[in-house]
């Protein structure tokens, strides 16, 4: 099985309405970085050893080709161009000495990454979550892990991006697409 045999979650299924759209993003390789955070100084030590600008809670950051998303206490998702993540994960793991406990693991296949766009995108998001999606509250660089449409999801509006990115468990990809289709039925031309 070469890499081309890898199947995306939605296999080309997408949603395109006049004012809202959902498309699967397959261009990102994802690494989960977990640092033991219940010990003082451990997270700082991990950041120092990795040489990464680990973002603070509910924020994202950028480091050259890599986007870094805070996803939970002591946990980040690192997104790099698809295909490079295995090598990067190994490189990062090799930078860690034994003084600070941290783990990197490739999680590309476990996630579905959805690009959400269109004029009504913030309205539709407000149908799946109680977060405040007003631009003044959810602007570029924000990244939250929350309950969305009844499932756990990570939502971010990346710096320089054109819309939202939603990360969820791959097994829920089709459910999410169905949910978005139902919840955006009115997002047709005004």
């Amino acid at each position, binding site marked *: *099985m*070469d890499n081309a*045999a*890898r*199947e*995306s979650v939605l*296999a080309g299924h997408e949603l395109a309405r006049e004012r809202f759209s959902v498309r699967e993003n397959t261009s990102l390789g994802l690494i*989960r970085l*977990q640092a*033991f955070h*219940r*010990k003082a100084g451990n997270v700082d030590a991990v950041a120092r050893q990795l040489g990464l600008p680990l973002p603070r809670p509910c924020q994202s950051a950028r480091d050259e080709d890599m986007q870094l998303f805070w996803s939970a206490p002591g946990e980040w998702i690192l997104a790099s161009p698809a295909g490079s993540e295995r090598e990067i994960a190994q490189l990062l793991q090799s930078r860690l000495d034994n003084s600070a*406990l*941290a*783990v990197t*693991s*490739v*999680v*590309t*296949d*476990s996630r579905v990454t959805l690009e959400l766009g269109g004029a009504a995108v913030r*309205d539709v998001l*407000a*149908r799946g*979550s*109680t*977060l*405040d999606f*007003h631009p*003044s*509250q959810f602007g570029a660089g924000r990244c939250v892990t929350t309950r969305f*449409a*009844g*499932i756990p999801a990570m939502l971010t509006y990346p710096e320089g991006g054109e819309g939202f990115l939603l990360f969820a*468990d*791959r*097994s*829920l*990809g*089709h*459910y999410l697409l*169905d*949910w978005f289709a*139902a*919840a955006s*039925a*009115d997002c*047709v031309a005004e």
Partner: protein
Amino acid sequence: MKRTVERLSGARVDVSRPLTFMFDGQPYRGFAGDSLASALLANGLSVVGRSFKLHRPRGVLGTGKEECNALVQLESGAFSEPNARATLVPLYKGLNATGQNAWPNVQFDLLGAMGALKRFLPASFYYKTFMWPNWHSWEWLIRRVAGLGAAPLSADPQGYIKQNIHADVVVIGAGRSGLQAALSASADESCRVLLIDEQEEFGGALLASPLDADRQWLDDALAQLEARANITLLRRTTVNGYYDNNVLAALERVSNHLGPVVVERPRERLWRIFAGRVVLATGALERPMVFPNNDRPGIMLASALAEYTHRYGLTLAERPVFYTNNDTAWRRALALADAGLPVLAIVDTRTAVDGELLQQAEAAGIDIYLGTAITNTAGRGGVRKVTLHRIAADGGSLGGAVTSLRCDLLAMSGGWTPTIHLYSQSGGRLQYRDSDACFVPADAHQSVSVVGRANGDFGEPANLQPQWLTPDVSSEKQWLDFQYDVTASDIQLAARENFVSVEHVKRYTTNGMSVDQGKTSNINGLGVLAQTLGRPVPEVGTTRFRPPYHPTTVGAFAGVELGALYAPYQRLPAHALHEAAGAVFEDYGAWRRPAYYPGPGESEERALARESLAVRQGVGLLDYSPLGKLEVHGPDAREFLNRVYINNIQTLKVGGARYGLMLDEGGIVIDDGIVVCLAEDHFLLNTTSGGAQAIHQHLEEWLQCEWLDLEVIVNNLTSQWATLMLSGPKARDVLCKLSGDIDVSREAFAHMQFREGTLLGQPCRILRASFTGEVSFEISVPAGHGPALWQALMTAGDEYDIAPFGLESLMLLRTEKGYLHIGSDTDGNTMPQDLGWAPAIEKKPADFIGRRSLAQAVGKDPDRFQFTGIELMDPDGRVESGAHVLTSDGSSTAGYVTSAFHSPSLGRTVALGLVAGAHARDGEKITIFGQGSKQAARLVKPGAYDEAGEALNG
């Protein structure tokens, strides 16, 4: 009711846009801008509904939420909606409504004869009446008569949506006070303001004002608001609930004013509102006067008459009489006269009235009756005559009859009740204001302010003198709750029977329990109760205001979470391939998994037989991807797992795998699985399928709340890997055909071992464990490659007639082997000793979660339900899981069958169960009761197939 021939000028209806509609099968005409109620009144319909209990004829009483009479069944079939308030339904073309609670129709209701039984049907009659011989002998009759309106029988074709919104300031009510609050809050551009109003258009009571200045002010205010970017305007939206933390719930009627059509927009939208500060500008509701036969059609609130006149341009009467105890009705009467309409008389219970009002009324030619009560009304299908008596100086008795007036409409005003429902829901305290005989907001509990009439700021003095009921005449027909037929005499009866709490009186009499929840009847009922008990009104207190303020459609609460979206569902990586292979899917937790793959015309039982025989004799392939895969890292990982499992993890070697049981603190078995030691500080936990999430949370809870000192990281990688189970005597032959660097030979890779490497060029993990009893390889590759691996194994297995098998076949296979399935063969009481694990626990030196509970007396009861095999004496017998195992005397249950299948390999039924004291009863005969019949069986050791367990080592 007089039919309106031509609308008054200045009315807010568009007479250039006539709309035809149907009521009770008859066609009528109204205009755009009409409500159904105004259109019915314009057509001269006096009787538009029937009361609930006595089927008395009912006419329009109000103009909005307070309406308790004009309830209609709107539309039909799937679009049908019961109890629609005609006052709240905007007229649309083709609207079709029918009156409720009447046969054949509201005009000629045969059940109207119930009215004659009024004396025999007082409050609570049903508590006293339907006792003999018992309630059930009456139930059939009550169920036929009870109920108001009919719920649609088919699914709602229209859609609903739920949406959240945040705002710094939320203003509820867009009358003058609300508009002023919204204008002032939104002047600060950084302040996000939300303005909500329940009417079709903003303006509140201003919409009914005959004054040009009011209309101009409204237009200006709306123009300013529309121009501001920081304000969101929600019309047709009723705020129904006010909860903690300034969270509100509101229902927006998005498209139901378009009628029974399916459009892209939802019919209704349920808003959940997160407010920084709330401004309540919810206005006030007018109260009826309480007097004999005050429920006759043609008797309406004075404010309603004003609104139907000035807003809808109706001319409802030629001889209207006003009846009041306060000044506001006088102003209504004068405004009517100003508009050139006739006003016959004002009857006022007060002896003295503001001189200026008197003068103006006299100048307008209105007859005035002060210190006078209406003591009766008459008229069929509408009020035709009222009887007047002078009230004695003490206010408690009547003098002689003054006169009677011929009239065609009676407009009443018993004072004003501030709409403090939401304020009260927010936790705000109320206080009683004697001068206006109403409750007004006192101390707020949340960040909320109340403005305008909702706050008791009525603008003009009302000089109200309450008269809770008419003295010196029977209270039998002095109506309080028009919909539920509650009269002042019912409240008095309740008080006589020692119901003194206002909450009890409400339930006993049903006063205020109707669809409008007492918006017009509560305060009057309270007044009557206070007077009867001889206690002041504030001491009696109000009933509790609870959400919803106005009924909310259940569909709006459901939103899009219906049918296929009722709950989130999870799909396997190779879902499309299973679908193409004709799999029958079932939900296992949230996972949609193949249960079996029937061939053309093949039954479930035959498919299970074919699939399981393929695994026993050749090879089968199962999508096992939901298998939990939790990785545990860290210097304390081994210690942690040793505390989590009842098994000894300290002795598990790198590369080795061990079966383990997990308990909760109560000693109850919650999970089983295989623990693999990948490195000294790195373990892989294969939890039960679908249990990964819950077990992950269980582990995190212990790490985050109890054992903060343990340096451990838990990583849930369940869905990173697609896992396929290749099982059967030919499994190794099939796997060998795929290129990879893992030696899968019998010598190199034994049962209960784990290997990592590559397969077909991808990272791969293989565990040799067996849940079928046959040689099995649980092969994991990155999930995106799952479909390709499935296809590669199916192709490689072609020469061995490989069969895909589903979860039901797996359950059959493991039941044959007597392998436990947590959740099927265990319940919320099962402890490890019930599964035969007592000796292993004895040997483990270290403590583990749940150990202490196992030592309790309950854990040592010899009659605990214990895991066992069950063999039917009749080789052709069948049994289903759930069947009871009876006690020896047959009088009770002593356990039950937990798993049962017909085994094609053994040619008989195999079953497992939880049975009282089973471990000491091996071989004992038992009786099973299931599906209404008994059969003989005996207890055996689990594992009917391949008892020696050799097949899995092959």
